[in-house]
């Protein structure tokens, strides 16, 4: 959208668009930062019955606006939870099929939805040693539907990731299943410009919709590879005043809305 129309930041845009992807009544594997904000926002909008699950070992906490946790393993994250299982148990719920959505970020993501959060450059002597997988690999491997939520930047959207921390569709086609990953896979990629999905056959990334005012050229200019552009690309309404108001009330100190 044109910048003079915008009354929100990129972070706010990403949080709102991610929130919109979450279906009511589902269980969501959530990390700190924008994913948590998105889930908390969705709960206060169209999806009051989603359940937040944190890898630290927390089921269904009530995140208190203005008291946001900085990790998934702390008292603020566990506030009023119904259960505090071990970390392994959380991942077993997921491997068993009980976790519907997982939200991941990405330092790099390629056209088949493979994600790198490990190293930029060579593994043994990397140019940048990133924090690593955490639960992201597990979510990418066994969660039912993975939403990747990231800024739309050329350095992030690369032809081929340096390291597959969290597998998407690997080399496309049937290669994910052939590797033994019989469940899940990337569902949508939500950015601050567009919503993307994956082609059913080739599993290559495909633009599904752009936000109102965003030109498709803008989407492509900010990617290191060319995604599939279908004949019809949808258009999505920008964040509403209500969405923004509630989002900002959840993080009034802008701890995560940086």
């Amino acid at each position, binding site marked *: 959208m044109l910048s003079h129309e915008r009354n929100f930041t990129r972070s706010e845009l990403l949080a709102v668009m991610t929130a919109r992807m979450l279906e009511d009544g589902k269980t969501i594997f959530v990390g700190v930062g924008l994913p948590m904000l998105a889930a908390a926002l969705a709960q206060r909008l169209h999806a009051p019955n989603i359940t937040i699950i944190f890898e630290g070992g927390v089921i269904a906490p009530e995140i208190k606006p203005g008291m946001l946790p900085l990790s998934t*393993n*702390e008292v603020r994250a566990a506030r009023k939870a119904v259960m505090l299982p071990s970390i392994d148990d959380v991942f077993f719920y997921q491997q068993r099929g009980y976790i519907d959505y997982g939200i991941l970020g990405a330092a790099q993501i390629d056209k088949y939805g493979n994600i790198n959060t490990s190293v930029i450059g060579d593994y043994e002597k990397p140019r940048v040693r990133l*924090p690593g997988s955490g639960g992201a690999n*597990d979510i990418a491997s066994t969660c039912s539907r993975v939403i990747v939520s990231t800024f739309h930047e050329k350095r992030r959207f690369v032809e081929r990731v340096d390291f597959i921390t969290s597998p998407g569709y690997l080399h496309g086609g049937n290669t994910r299943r052939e590797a*033994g990953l019989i469940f899940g896979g990337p569902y949508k990629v939500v950015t601050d410009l567009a919503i993307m999905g994956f082609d059913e056959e080739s599993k290559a990334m495909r633009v599904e919709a752009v936000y109102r005012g965003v030109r498709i050229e803008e989407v492509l200019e900010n990617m290191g590879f060319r995604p599939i552009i279908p004949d019809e690309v949808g258009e999505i309404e920008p964040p509403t005043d209500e969405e923004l108001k509630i989002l900002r009330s959840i993080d009034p100190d802008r701890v995560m809305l940086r």
Partner: protein
Amino acid sequence: MRWNVDVRTFREWAERKDKSPTPKLMSLDEAVKRFLRNGAVVAIGGCLYSRTPMAAVHEIIRQGFRELTIVRNLAGFETDLLLVSGCLRRLITSWCSPGYAWGMSRVLRHYVENALAEFEEWSHLGIGLRLKAAAMGVPFLPTFSMLGSSIMERLGIAEMTCPYSGEKLALVPALYPDVAIIHANRADAYGNIQIDGYTHMDKDMAQAARHVIATVEEVVDGDEIRRSAERTIIPFFCVDAVVELPFGAYPSECWGRYEADFSHIASYQQRVDERGIEGARSYVSENITGVSSFMEFLSKVGVEQLLGRVRAFRNVVA
């Protein structure tokens, strides 16, 4: 084979342990001296800011152990301290960062990018399954995690086809730490350990390790444990040392007692932002090697700050 898992030797650790219910109270100084060695594989309990046995980390640094392999599912601030103190050679983890608010660790980057320390990366569940396999007494556990990833490829993890389902699975090798260090809410003198709130991977870690050092907020009478046996998650026969250390996880949190002190971590982080590795080293020399005990460190932090964290915990759960 990189992942040689000698279950017979590791089982002997457990078989030879003295299993009589004898008191194991000792000072932290003594516990660390007795059970750590240069080059040991040390698993650190809790997770990120939660129940990190920080007093024990300080003591390891103070006693100057070298070439340690540290095992921790989500590693944080404490890894920086171990790195700049020259204790840590290899980190077995799924993730390491001072935390969301500070992004990547500049200290970790320096050490790993210059090949001064090794970062052995698994998935989060991967670390959990390594410890769980050892805790269960089997050499591996199967999972769908890590299949197809560069993590699996780099590690050279074996895969197999399940004879019942025909599905492919990654086989995660057991990991038996030489020492597990846990910070818990309470224990009796014999080492029956209770944790309030989330337990993370501490149960499996203790069951997997050769030796277990438990620092606890409070040592209670055996009868109190027997009245609340449902809450015990590590039995005495796994445990070698019990050290009473209130606030022993500070500046990380201990559920039920105090919230993490992010302002303390932020002040550390500021040193790093300003002076890099030297900034981190200045934190260590002022707060760890420059003091004689964790109690002296806590005294520097001050009563007001500590009690503020207690209030903060109550405020969140209220």
